[in-house]
Every structure is written in structure tokens, then in C-alpha cells.
């Protein structure tokens, strides 16, 4: 009798052990382990290598699709046009990068914290954890929970670091919480991601908030410095009898177009 149930019991015991481990880990997020770092770095590098041919194919398609079928006598002219378009795209790309870096440099002048510039090398908004990967890691001085910003506003915080890369938890992730202030009325609340945007919790029914108001970090939790722009109020709703208003935020940062970011070193870690 006991033999019959030995295997299922054994499987269930292992399963329960694993589940307890997961629950423990969700409440006690420790530093990233070495094995996890190796997999993260390996997967990011492999993904980069595999994505390159796709990117090349897409770029080639976009550049040449409209030129297919042009008559023979125009071939020479087409070559020249292609060469010039190529140059123009390169110049345009350099110009756009220059503009973005200038904006980051302006931001640098304003920042009072030590900071690290990083490039975005991967975005993942399809998984349960909305995150992006940057090309700076613990060897560059990036620390867990460090705020990540752009010239437009707050992006999120560092969720985990490997040696050369880090994962940044986006503001829009449901597990992301930030203490915020509505700039005009100084109403305080807790900003939480909704998966595709953000909303502020615990805004009382008497508190004055209106559409278009800027929302900035409150600086209470000591994770985020005070005064970083998060976004603008896009919708305010209050149901009769409710204690709190439902306040939705349109983030200032466009998460689908991030290319460069700045990682701030928390005050306690500054040299």
C-alpha cells in the first residue's frame, strides 16, 4: 500500500520544498547568484548575436524594398542614391545620438549624485516582469535598487546586477512602488505600475489632483532622490462612497524608445 504512494508522495514533497523556496525568495530577494549571473550574461550575449542578422535583414528590407524593380538605365543613379541615403542615415543617426547625449550631459550638470551612463541592450515587456537590460554591471559600480533615469524622467530601479549587465525594473511593472508627490498640490501617494502604465494609490477623496498635473518622486524611501519627474496625471476617478481616488499616470518616459539611460548611485554608496 505504502509502496504504491511512494512516488507521488516523493514528487509532492519536492514540489512543496520548491514552492517554499520560491515564496521565501519572493520575500527575501538576495544578491544575484553566480550561476544566475552566468546565465544572464550568456543569454544576453547570445541574444545579441542572434538578433544581429534579423536587424540586418530588417534594415536591408526597409532601405531597399521601395527600390526593387527600377529600370536598367537608372541603376547607376540608384547606386548613388543608395550610397547617399546610407550616408544620410548614418549622419542622421549620429545627429540623433548627439542630441540624446547632449540632453544626458545637460542632465549630468543638474545631478548631485554620482552616476553611470549605460546603453539599453534589451527590453522585455512581454514577461511577467517588465524590465530592460543595460550594458553596465557590478564591475562598473551599478548596485541593486539604484535609480535609473533619462533626461525625460524616471525609468525604474536596478532589480539585479551581473558583472557586465544589469536588469532594470520598469516603473510600469506591477511590483514597482515609488513614493510620489503631485507637484502642484503636494499631495503624496504611492505610485504602482499597472503593466502598461502607472497609478497612484492612497490619494484621499478630499485631495486635490487634476489631469495634467506633474508627478515627481517624494524622496521618502531613500531609494529615489526627491524631485525626479515620473509623468503626468492622465485620469482621475472617484466612486461615490470610496475612500480613495483612482489616479492614473502617463509616464514621461517612452519605454519602447529607450536607448541610453543614467544609473544613479544611491547616497549611501557614494565615495
Amino acid at each position, binding site marked *: 500500500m505504502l509502496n504504491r504512494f511512494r512516488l*507521488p508522495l516523493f*514528487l509532492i514533497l*519536492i*514540489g512543496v520544498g*520548491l*514552492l517554499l*523556496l*520560491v*515564496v521565501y*525568495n*519572493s520575500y527575501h*530577494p538576495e544578491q544575484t*547568484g553566480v*550561476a*544566475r549571473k552566468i*546565465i*544572464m550574461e*550568456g*543569454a544576453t550575449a*547570445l*541574444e545579441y548575436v*542572434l*538578433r544581429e542578422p*534579423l536587424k540586418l535583414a530588417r534594415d536591408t528590407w526597409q532601405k531597399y524594398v521601395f527600390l526593387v524593380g527600377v529600370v536598367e538605365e537608372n541603376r547607376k543613379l540608384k547606386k548613388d542614391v543608395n550610397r547617399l541615403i546610407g550616408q544620410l542615415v548614418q549622419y542622421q543617426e549620429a545627429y540623433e545620438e548627439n542630441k540624446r547625449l547632449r540632453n544626458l550631459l545637460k542632465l549630468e550638470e543638474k545631478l548631485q549624485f554620482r552616476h553611470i551612463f549605460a546603453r539599453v541592450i534589451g*527590453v*522585455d*515587456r*512581454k*514577461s*511577467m*516582469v517588465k*524590465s530592460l537590460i543595460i550594458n553596465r554591471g557590478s564591475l562598473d559600480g551599478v548596485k541593486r535598487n539604484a535609480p535609473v533615469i533619462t533626461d525625460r524622467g524616471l525609468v525604474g530601479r536596478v*532589480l*539585479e546586477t551581473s558583472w557586465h549587465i544589469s*536588469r532594470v*525594473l520598469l516603473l510600469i511593472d*506591477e*511590483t514597482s512602488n515609488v513614493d510620489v508627490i503631485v507637484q502642484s498640490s503636494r499631495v503624496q501617494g504611492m505610485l*504602482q505600475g*499597472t*503593466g502598461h502604465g502607472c497609478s497612484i494609490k492612497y490619494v484621499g477623496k478630499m485631495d486635490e489632483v487634476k489631469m495634467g498635473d506633474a508627478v515627481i518622486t517624494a524622496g521618502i524611501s531613500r531609494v529615489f532622490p526627491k524631485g525626479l519627474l515620473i509623468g503626468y496625471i492622465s485620469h482621475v476617478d472617484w466612486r461615490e462612497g470610496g475612500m480613495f481616488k483612482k489616479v492614473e499616470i502617463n509616464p514621461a518616459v517612452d519605454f519602447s524608445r529607450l536607448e541610453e539611460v543614467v544609473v544613479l548611485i544611491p547616497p549611501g554608496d557614494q565615495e
Partner: protein
Amino acid sequence: MIYIIISALLFVLLVIQNILADVLFLGRSPLEISLIVVIYMAFRLSFIKGALLSAWVGFVMDCITGTVAGAYVFIYYAVFSGSYFISRHLYGEKDGFIVTLVLLWGIVEGIILFGLKSLQTGEFAFFSFLPFLILKIVPLGVLGPFLFHIFDKLGFSYGFNERATKRP
């Protein structure tokens, strides 16, 4: 040796599925071929080897997606054990059976992930999670039988189908 190669191939598969999801669904939905792989392994491999490979796939998924450490290890272990248990008591490999099994485990996985997320956020917004779940499991259901056939062809060619040949 063959299982070290399989582990490496599974790692590559997980990276490719991430890229495919971005290309096919514009990054709006995950394409979790790994779930079908785990179910397939439950039907074809011995328990120890299959469970270890499932745990490996889960671990890599945890690292790639940034989920709480152990979440996918637990899920894939549960999916593998459940499928293994089913495979010992039911003999069915028709397309409909595979689709049902993939959808069932897709829903179970979604609910576990949703539960973990709710645990972390302290909020229970199941209806906002529902579209995510549907987008996730429908392509898997469609792909399930097709991938089973492909894996079968690959598996038999390289001789690591340990259990299928023992079936009546």
C-alpha cells in the same frame, strides 16, 4: 554527454523563443515553447533525467525573464511531474489530447505566476491578467501538436526517446 548537449540546446532554444516572441508578437506576448518541451519530456524521458532537464529549463527561464529565483523551476517541475503522472495512466497522443494538455498546463502556469505576482504586489487583479494569459496559451495550443511531431522526428533520429518505444 548527450544530455549536456541537450541542456545547451535547450538554453539556445530559450533565447530563440524570446527573439521569436518579439518578432512574431511585437514583444506583446511571450511564446513559451519551453512549456511544450517540458510536457514532451514527460512523455518521452525517464523521470530523473526529465525532471533534471525541466529544472534546468526553469532555471534558465528564471534568469532570462528576471522572475523570482525558483519560480519557473517550481512551475516546470510541477508541469513535468503532472504530465509524467498523466503519461503513466493515459495513453493518448492525438492532436486534441496534446492541445488540451498544453492549454491545461498553460493555464496552471499562468495561475501560479499570477499568484506569485499577487503575493509580491498584494493585489488581486485577475481580470487584467486574463488577456495576458489568453495571448500566452492560445499560440502554445496551436503549436503543441506540431512541435510534438518535430521533437519526435528529432528525438528518434538521435535515439533519446527513452519511453515511447516501450509503450504498447
